């Protein structure tokens, strides 16, 4: 059928213990497995084995991003499409890529980002029973987002990489910022009928701008800010709103310097809806609707 949604991100951290402490105590994710150099984490409402993997590395950044497909046959379908487009694909058996991991294919985007499509990740269940469940568990730690939401990457040629995602992987373009020269400065694309599952902004190839968790609503954004400030975590922007995607958001950094976001809002889209276009003159409002200005740090810092 197709790609369903973002499955997981693997994030490089130079201090595995410090990062694990932050992602479990401050964010409030749950550790599901551990290897000597990797820690596997999930959010409380996720049924699958992991949505964030921390990997020990001398630097920070995105090691790979994984996408869940709805059927096993999708792995063959996309492997064929990728190979026809001249992209090398590697195949990985169930469990080969780590504990709980499903069957997968891996390839590299034109931007150099390692991408994975995966089917059959182990289902470990959310924190609620399957019979007569209460709507939420009590005793959650940190700001405890229910699930991962999207990933935002940097690349030199946004246009070419957007075309790759659309043409080879059937992503649907929902929004774009066009420079005065007509080139795409940033794009937002989806598979899950949401405002975006992935976004691209002009920058260094292979870079991670941020990845985001979903939170319930604007009130939850305030709670995230309270929890982060209490723990002394560096908050980059105040609780605010995007013009592009309409989402409410808060940006902050993990101890390694990877940017995180708490996100809510937006809209639902049908796959054939035309994209929204932002012009360069309105780029400030596109990114931060209330301030109307994008700060230099937000434009230049990535991992």
């Amino acid at each position: 059928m197709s790609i369903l949604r973002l499955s997981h991100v693997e994030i490089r951290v130079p201090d595995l213990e410090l990062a694990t402490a932050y992602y479990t105590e401050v964010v409030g994710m749950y550790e599901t497995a551990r290897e000597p150099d990797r820690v596997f984490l999930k959010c409380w409402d996720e049924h699958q084995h992991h949505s964030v993997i921390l990997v020990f590395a001398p630097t920070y950044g995105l090691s790979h991003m994984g996408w869940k497909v709805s059927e096993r046959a999708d792995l063959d379908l996309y492997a064929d499409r990728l190979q026809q487009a001249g992209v090398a694909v590697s195949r990985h058996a169930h469990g080969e890529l780590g504990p709980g991991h499903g069957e997968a294919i891996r390839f590299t985007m034109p931007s150099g980002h390692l991408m994975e499509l995966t089917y059959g990740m182990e289902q470990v269940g959310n924190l609620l029973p399957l019979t007569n469940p209460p709507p939420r568990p009590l005793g959650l730690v940190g700001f405890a987002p229910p699930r991962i939401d999207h990933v935002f990457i940097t690349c030199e040629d946004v246009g070419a990489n957007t075309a790759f995602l659309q043409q080879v992987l059937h992503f649907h373009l929902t929004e774009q910022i066009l420079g005065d020269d007509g080139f795409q400065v940033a794009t937002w694309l989806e598979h899950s009928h949401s405002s975006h599952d992935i976004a691209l902004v002009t920058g260094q190839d292979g870079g991670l701008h941020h990845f985001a968790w979903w939170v319930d609503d604007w009130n939850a954004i305030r709670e995230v800010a309270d929890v982060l400030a209490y723990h002394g975590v560096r908050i980059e922007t105040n609780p605010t709103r995007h013009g592009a995607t309409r989402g409410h958001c808060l940006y902050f950094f993990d101890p390694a310097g990877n940017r995180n976001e708490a996100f809510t809002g937006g809209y639902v889209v049908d796959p054939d809806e035309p994209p929204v276009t932002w012009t360069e003159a309105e780029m400030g409002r596109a990114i931060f609707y209330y301030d109307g200005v994008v700060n230099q740090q937000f434009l230049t810092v990535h991992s």
Partner: protein
Amino acid sequence: MGILRLAHVDVVVTDLDLATAYYTEVMGLLESERDADSVYLKCWDEPGHHSLRLVYGPRVGFDQMSFRVEREDDLDDLENAVQRYGFPVTRVSKGERLGQGESIWFQTPSGQVMELVHDIEYVGRSTPLINPSPVIEGLKGIAPPRMDHVLVTCEEVGEATKFYQDVLGFRTTEQLLDGQGHQVATWMERSHSPHDLALVTGKNGGLHHFAFWLDDWDHVRRSADILAYNGIQIDVGPTRHGITRGNTIYFFDPLGTRNEVFTGGYRPDPDFPTITWTEDNIGRAVFYYEGDLNTRFMTVHT
């Protein structure tokens, strides 16, 4: 492929002007078009022609529910599937119905008329496609961004659920079982939400309610304020469901059709395991805070 989401709900009203006044002034929907016997309405954030059609008739009731399919050729596949199940299917040509192209319709085992359509006239959201502000000014009433789901009544929930699953590809996210293990009510989805369609035991062909999506719990509170200000009869809420986890208010339009405003829930993948509620927990399943069902909620439908 297959069904995407609920497209529109068509209800019969005995007073078209009164119903239109309520749905535009209190609910805050926008009128797209009008013909001899119908008014076509949409929410501000919906790109399609309409999500609610009010049809004039001598008796309040449910005309049909219409779902959008992802591709035009899904209509052929689903037409064949419904016919193989043994139910006749009628084709409607482009131009016969306002705001949409070719469609098919059939009677379902739960007794409702169901329409499937791909080609919906694009009129656009109320925000522009170039540099849109995330909100628009001057909306009236509750102004939900979109239609969300429909809950219908039928005599044999189990049999009907099997039809929606096996023939139309719906996935059951939650079910309420009686002491003998029979399905009393089921919640099914196609749009990765807790439900697009739900069935509850009652008369065949009935409508229990249809629901509009709201932004969040704060929007639920503002909706309750607006309903009370306008003297609308609230049935239940603001409260929360155990099933779907949604926050909600139920109320009645001036002609007696139950409406809901709904937000929250979760994002199930197609392999989501079905959640089961047992009859001894029916109170919390439906109204989590009260833990109790009122008789009006159980028995009144259109």
